């Protein structure tokens, strides 16, 4: 079937126009897809619009893609001129078919920079492209470029969500609200893409980038993310990237909360956006972090027991336990009065509730602990009076956990992972 160049040209013009019209007719299109349809049908439009889904029949792609691709390249090489509207339409068509085409995204960057294109439009195009290609690295990169560009253009000064030292004008509040909405939108885009492809590294990396560059370490956002991803990871137990995100959150929270603690020790300026930290108790931040780790280990335990044989969960356990181990180490070496009496709490394993009589026993079950005995008695009794102590993850409790898994275990993989974990505990943590 030989197609003349004019036929292809006519077809392509028509397809590009049809796509453009589809968007005009329905601004709520939320997904694009390829319709498997091998028969060539010149007379009919290959563009299908059903509900909010835009489909392209597969037969036209082999004509459309090389043609449009070529046209754009000729433009970039200055061999053929395209007006701005044509550029917008052509890049849109190209990117919906093949979003990994960097040149097309870059043309759109240029259009953005000279004010022809609305950045919101590009964010929308990215979202659509991701519905078909949830991993596409170039697409995520472009999204970050647009977000950064928007940040620069829309905020004259650096916007710190933490910094609510004194009441601001309405403009600042609106800025804040806009940022909140933007954050939510980014999390939604990431979650959608993560759901469309298992262990979608690019989607989760983008999510981390958003935390670092848009939320800028805001504690509330970090806490919210921890709670909102909990269910997701529980339903995606072999998604490494999802669990890695939680590891990142824990690390970030531990770092931010520790800094808050230090500010409280040496108060220069009271940060009062930190509703979660609670400034009243000087030990409070030291409680929050262990609690976070404890909860994460509990989640991990629950999932390992419910869904045997998923290596991701065991990897997650290693990461979390290691982070906890590191944090505890760093904070033991800090000022004596601030450090939690870890030797004592390590003795209180998950099986036993807190017990006054065991204060005298400071078993050095963990080789790494050294200076914790000093001055910890008064802290111990103070803590006991405050309420039930959280059993913190520790080497003995981890060994108990592994034994428990091995005795009830009917899955060969689970067996293997448990044994490997024990080996890791002994060689890395136990030293």
């Amino acid at each position, binding site marked *: 079937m030989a197609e003349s160049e004019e036929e292809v040209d006519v077809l392509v013009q028509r397809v590009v126009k049809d796509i453009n019209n589809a968007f005009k007719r329905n601004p709520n299109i939320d*997904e694009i*897809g390829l319709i498997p*349809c091998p028969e060539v049908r010149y007379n009919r439009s290959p563009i299908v619009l059903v509900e909010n889904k835009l489909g392209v029949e597969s037969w036209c792609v082999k004509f459309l893609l090389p043609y449009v691709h070529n046209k754009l390249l000729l433009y970039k090489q200055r061999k053929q001129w395209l007006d701005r509207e044509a550029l917008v339409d052509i890049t849109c068509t190209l990117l919906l078919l093949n979003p990994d085409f960097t040149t097309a995204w870059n043309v759109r960057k240029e259009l953005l920079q000279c004010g022809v294109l609305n950045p919101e439009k590009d964010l929308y195009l990215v979202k659509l492209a991701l519905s078909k290609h949830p991993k596409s690295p170039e697409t995520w990169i472009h999204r970050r470029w647009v977000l950064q560009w928007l940040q620069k253009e829309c905020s004259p000064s650096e916007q710190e969500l933490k910094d609510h030292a004194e009441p601001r004008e309405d403009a600042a509040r609106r800025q804040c609200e806009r940022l909140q909405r933007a954050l939510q939108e980014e999390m939604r885009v990431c979650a959608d893409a993560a759901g469309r492809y298992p262990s979608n590294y690019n989607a989760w990396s983008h999510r981390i980038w958003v935390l670092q560059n848009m939320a800028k370490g805001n504690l509330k956002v970090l806490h919210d993310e921890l709670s909102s991803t909990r269910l997701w990871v529980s339903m995606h137990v072999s998604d490494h990237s999802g669990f890695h995100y939680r590891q990142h959150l824990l690390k970030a929270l531990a770092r931010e909360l520790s800094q808050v603690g230090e500010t409280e020790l040496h108060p220069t300026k009271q940060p009062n956006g930190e509703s979660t930290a609670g400034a009243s108790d000087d030990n409070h931040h030291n409680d929050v972090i262990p609690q976070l780790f404890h909860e994460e280990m509990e989640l991990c335990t629950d999932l390992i027991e419910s869904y045997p044989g998923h290596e991701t969960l065991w990897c997650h356990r290693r990461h979390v336990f290691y982070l906890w181990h590191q944090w505890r180490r760093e904070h033991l070496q800090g000022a004596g009065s601030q450090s939690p009496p870890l030797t004592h709490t390590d003795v209180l394993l998950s099986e036993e509730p807190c017990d006054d009589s065991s204060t005298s026993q400071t078993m050095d079950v963990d080789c790494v602990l050294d200076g914790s005995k000093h001055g910890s008695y008064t802290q111990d009794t103070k803590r006991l009076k405050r309420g039930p102590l959280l059993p913190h993850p520790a080497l003995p409790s981890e060994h108990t956990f592994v034994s428990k898994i091995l005795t009830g275990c*009917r899955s060969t993989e689970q067996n293997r992972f448990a044994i490997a974990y024990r080996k890791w505990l002994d060689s890395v943590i136990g030293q």
Partner: protein
Amino acid sequence: MKLYSLSVLYKGSTKANLLKAAYDLSSFSFFQRSSVQEFMTFTSALIVERSALGSRASIKEQEYLCHVYVRNDNLGGVVIADSEYPSRVCFTLLDKVLDEFSRQVNSIDWPSGSPATIQYTALDSHLARYQNPREADAMTKVQAELDETKIILHNTMESLLERGEKLDDLVQKSEHLGNQSKAFYKTARKQNSCCEIM
């Protein structure tokens, strides 16, 4: 952790007859859903046809796990899930569904039944509820009941077939699959779906 389809079939002497099915295709891209559904029907029927009476099996095919239970009275059920979904819960679900089905639908109607004629409406709600395996069923109870050693494991669909039989041929001949699905199958087989453009 997803369930994609839940089907009840009758294992006839030469082929399996679909009685009722429920699907959750929300995680597939919109325009693929009708093909995916046809393939799930095709697969479920093929599995029941090639499974012995009184057997339970799990068949792995790409990133899917198909779990089947064919009872001694020729009633069969197939669950198609992803690889995260715990297989034990699938077998509990199959037991439950087939039991309920056999009490609600007279066995006289099984050999010649079809989704249009069979009066059994609970399949959709079962599928929806079991999307979260923990809400649907107490896992500990499940673990005690099922003897896993009796479940046959297949690493591919191919291992269900007779010597010399090819899956491609069965696809081409199948009445469950429309032309579009057959074409889709052809192109999908040739490509690495990771880098899919076409």
